[in-house]
């Protein structure tokens, strides 16, 4: 994954994700919005095949990179849980 940070302050980040599509971005923004400290989590794609740009704002109690890291941890956790589930179901 290749990202480009275009703006970073204590409560706001604007990050460009090279080569990403809706599959990961939509899941990420939805997970970010689950965090109560996050105000805005939204990605925009200028044209249909443009690289998405993510905008994250927080209430200032956590910096945007921390909330992104936490969201990634949650998503990784869900995938691990489901993978474990599938493997157990198949082995039965």
């Amino acid at each position, binding site marked *: 994954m290749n*990202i480009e940070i275009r703006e970073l302050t204590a409560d706001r980040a604007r990050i460009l994700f090279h080569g990403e599509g809706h*599959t990961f971005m*939509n899941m990420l923004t939805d*997970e970010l919005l689950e965090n109560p400290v996050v105000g805005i989590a939204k990605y925009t794609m200028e044209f249909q095949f443009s690289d998405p740009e993510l905008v994250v704002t927080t209430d200032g109690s956590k910096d945007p*990179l921390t909330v992104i890291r936490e969201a990634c941890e949650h998503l990784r956790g869900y995938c691990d849980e489901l*993978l474990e589930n599938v493997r157990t179901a*198949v082995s039965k």
Partner: protein
Amino acid sequence: MEIIFGRLDNNNARFTLTETRTAFANAFRRAMISEVPTLAIDQVRIYDNTSVLFDEMLAHRLGLIPLRTDLTTYVPAGECSCGGAGCTHCTATYTLSVEGPRMVFSRDLIPQDPTTAPCHDEIPIIKLSENQKVVLEARATVNTGKEHAKWQPTIACGYKNYPEITFSENCDGCGMCVEECPRGILTVKEGKAQVVAEKQEECLLCRLCEEACMAGGIGSEPSIRIKGDETRKIFVVEGDESLPVQEIIERALMHLRQKSEDLHTIVSQLSGVT
């Protein structure tokens, strides 16, 4: 979050994903369709084609044939040690040589590696008549559905919210909803409408029963209510036999996990957390 399988065989899976959200379920669906790699014919060298189809159309039809894929043997060309030049780890080769008059089927495609044979023998490619001939060599590579639909390992892959069907006390058992239901999941017992045992998951959420109930004229509200539970999704995944469905599910989850992991690593390095 949990996956509860209703059905799982080599080519079909039906499962319920619980305690989830729509965005995650949709990412999972999209990953199964377009992020799981599989083999498909990508380059065709045509030595002779006196059939009625143009070379391009013939090549296109060959590309759409599902091929058995062993992802422990084959890797995408970009990740191969040959650098994408084409070797036995990233490319499967086939030959086809048929003279008419007869139908050319997918079984006429002879693979160099028998483990990469077409999934079905009976796929018609072209009908040849007297003195028509097709001689060609094809190369299949591993890629994803994101690049082209011929690399999709799934045929049908989708989800719906888990149907919740409730009946109010106003139900007079008129049976209008039972007649209207296209899936036949409703019945009238003891003067009240109810769901046939174990058929609740088959509800299409079409709400024709609600409309029928309104037509019955019992008050202003229908006595049957259909709601989709957004935290529970019923998935149906049907593969094209190039990969077992279980592998499609696992690889899609591994893909999403890898993306999250990659972003986590990059962001951790940027913010100085290890």
